[in-house]
């Protein structure tokens, strides 16, 4: 799991990431996972989420802010990274003005060619070919964290491994595969 | 009979606040007698009341009390009994308090089968505020707000309680005191929710507007209308229309809220079994 450096996790800078897509994709779960990993790593962290009918379909998002210092404003102002799991989410965030922002998207769900500040991966196809389609979101998270390492992978993995179920194992496999997808590209 | 029931009453607060001919004092005395026969100590009793004539019942009881807001006597009582099932909890309400503004609490206390004895002094109108119609005022009867006859039908509170799940339902009148005493004694021993509806006299407001202007008229009314349940069942349908059954009308064997919740606490490891 050390194929990628994660020096960026060790600054006291405020890091904002947004996990966006549609209800049912497990975005709140991903956000909680990242947040929990941050807390275990001794970082300060705030996670917020869209709530209500949005979590039953339609646009949904989870925001995570990580820092070594106390966090004031709890929402993302200029996200450093966005994981966009729908075409709508991708379009919403690529219009951002931030030069540093990276939007990671799924090529199957959003087929426009990559623009500057974007990275597309075949999460859907890969998870289907590995027969872990239910863990497609973890694969996306693995790739996203490889490119935007706001929390150490080791913490994410240790949390995923605490779930000993078959689903938990698939999640671990998907997450690791996602990290490699981003690392090999 | 022993005079020990006196310890449940605040004698220095007599005479009673209510009008001459009112039935409320009869109900309080019957409750005190039932508590005395059961030997419940006054400090182990919590009486909750709301607002209205019978909402002042706690003024004369030497027990713990919550004199709460209008219609909420059963909601306060639910908190008391829910938090400490070992207490004897009685809610004293009029028909306005229990059947009308507090109707929802009544339904749900019965549904939960929580161990409260609900005693309803049903005088068929709002006495305290000047004799307006309530949710038990019968169709066509007169009140200060149904001068042309009540356009609504009244609840049969006992039927409502039975349908909602009460494990004991009884009716008495302020004339049939023996029936009332026995009903209250049985209700106080029922672990679940009990309703004791007491048909009560209000000659000043209800009676005056409905051809029963004196206390004696009202007593005669209850005397002739109330029929013990065993006898009521044998009346013809026509006769039944003119009368109502008294005594314990309904018993249902089901666990009360405390018993069920204690199992949850045991399963959760919160209390020893």
């Amino acid at each position, binding site marked *: 799991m050390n194929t990628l450096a994660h020096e960026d996790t060790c600054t006291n800078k405020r890091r904002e990431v947004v996990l966006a897509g549609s209800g049912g994709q497990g975005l709140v779960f991903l956000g909680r996972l990242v947040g929990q990993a941050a807390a275990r790593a001794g970082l300060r*962290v705030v996670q917020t989420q869209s709530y209500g009918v949005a979590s039953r379909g339609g646009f949904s998002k989870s925001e995570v802010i990580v820092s070594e210092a106390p966090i004031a404003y709890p929402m993302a102002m200029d996200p450093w990274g966005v994981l966009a799991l729908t075409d709508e989410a991708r379009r919403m965030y690529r219009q951002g003005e931030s030069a540093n922002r990276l939007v990671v998207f799924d090529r199957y769900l959003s087929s426009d060619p990559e623009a500057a500040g974007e990275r597309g991966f075949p999460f859907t196809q890969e998870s289907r070919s590995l027969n872990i389609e239910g863990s497609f979101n973890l694969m996306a998270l693995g790739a996203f964290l490889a490119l935007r390492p706001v929390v150490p992978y080791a913490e994410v993995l240790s949390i995923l491994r605490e779930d000993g179920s078959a689903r938990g194992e698939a999640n671990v496999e998907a997450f690791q595969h996602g990290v490699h997808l981003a690392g090999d590209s | 009979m022993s005079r020990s029931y006196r310890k449940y009453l605040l004698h220095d607060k007599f005479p009673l606040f209510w009008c001459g001919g009112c039935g409320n004092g009869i109900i309080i005395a019957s409750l005190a007698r039932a508590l005395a026969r059961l030997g419940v100590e006054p400090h182990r009793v919590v009486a909750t009341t709301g607002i209205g004539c019978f909402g002042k019942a706690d003024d004369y009881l030497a027990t713990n009390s919550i004199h709460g*807001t209008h219609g909420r006597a059963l909601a306060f009582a639910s908190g008391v009994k*829910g938090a400490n099932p070992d207490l004897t909890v009685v809610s004293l309400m009029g028909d306005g308090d229990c059947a009308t503004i507090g109707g929802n609490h009544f339904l749900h206390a019965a549904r939960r089968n929580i161990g409260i004895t609900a005693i309803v002094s049903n005088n068929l109108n709002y006495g305290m505020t000047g004799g307006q119609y309530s949710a038990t005022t019968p169709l066509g009867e007169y009140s200060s707000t149904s001068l042309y006859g009540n356009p609504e039908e009244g609840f049969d509170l006992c039927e409502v309680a039975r349908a909602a799940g009460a494990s004991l339902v009884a009716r008495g009148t302020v004339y049939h005191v023996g029936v009332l005493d026995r009903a209250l004694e049985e209700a106080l021993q029922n672990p679940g929710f009990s309703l004791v509806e007491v048909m009560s006299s209000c000659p000043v407001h209800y009676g005056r507007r409905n051809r029963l202007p004196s206390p004696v008229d009202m007593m005669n009314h209850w005397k002739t209308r109330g029929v013990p349940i065993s006898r009521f069942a044998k009346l013809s349908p026509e006769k039944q229309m003119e009368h109502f059954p008294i005594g314990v009308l309904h018993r249902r064997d089901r666990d009360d809220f405390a018993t069920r919740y204690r199992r949850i606490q045991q399963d959760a490891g919160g209390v020893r079994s």
Partner: protein
Amino acid sequence: MSAQRSFVQGNEAVVEGALAAGARYFAGYPITPSSEIAEMAARKLPGVGGVYMQMEDEIASMAAIIGASLTGKKSFTATSGPGLSLMLENLGMAIMAEVPCVIVDVQRSGPSTGLATKPAQADVMMARWGSHGDHSAIVLAPSSVQECFDLTVRAFDLAEQLRHPVLVLSDAIVGHMREDVHFPEPEALDPITRRDPDVGPEEYVMHADGADGLPVPLPPFGSKYLVRANSSAHDPSGYPSADPGLARANIRRLHDKVEDAVEWISDYSLIGPDEPDVLLISYGASARTAEQLVVDPPTDSRPALLKLRTLWPFPDRVIRDTVASFPGVPVVVPEMNLGQIVREVQRVVGKEHPCYGYHRSDGQPIEPGELHRFVEDVVT
């Protein structure tokens, strides 16, 4: 162990705080965005010998926690604006009968059903004045998950000390966000517990103050003491009385016991430079926006923040002293409503002092950028 940090939601931290404070009874009615509090109370209370009751409405919920508290169990409920509207009836009962209890209002956008899942801070005045009749109020406002825990613990303590209902005025942002928090070890907390009265049952008078100036202890139903909790005007024993002198003394005492305690109830913090160019006064989720301007100030900007954790009784002296310590510095009060606390601040600082509200009432948080632009206009 004590350095262990948990990652939990604000609403969950409320329940952790309540349990740590010794709460053993919850009655409530589910409502967004507070429902997680009911859910977690339902899950956790039975395991500690406590009781969760789901009532038929918020009127009954408030009544039930009063009844439960009178049996000696520390009791709480949770709701949002529409539910608090219903609870106001028996909030008055808790004030009148001096029954300790805690009400958590996770504010959402109104009026009426409003934006049911979106945040607001528009219940501030309802929390203070909503229940009819003369009365005071104790209202605490958390702005973080940590404060959800800390202020809930404090709410139970204040409720017991002053025998008064205490509101925790959270909001949909604070209630739903997750943060890393530190829950102290149980032995590190010393919650105030009910104690027996100093006198026997014959001499006990329920509505009176002890030697410490605080209301006398409240014995539980079922003890040798008889307790009369009365919503009607009453004498010190709880027995109804229409005597104007007794009514005057009772209303005055109920009001003053809270207002006179404002100094030790008040909880606040002041952060920022020694010589700010603007003083922000805020609370709850909006204080986080204001804090952002202080910790990461835009160029040529020197804001300070007075964050209020106690909203009621209103900390007049704290506001007055803080404003006086920055002569001529304008005050800006950001809040997610059309102007509630700002009016209190304006009352305290007087007409001459520049004091402006920055308001947003569309179910969205106040963003740091918009607040900065407003502040720039005020300063220049």
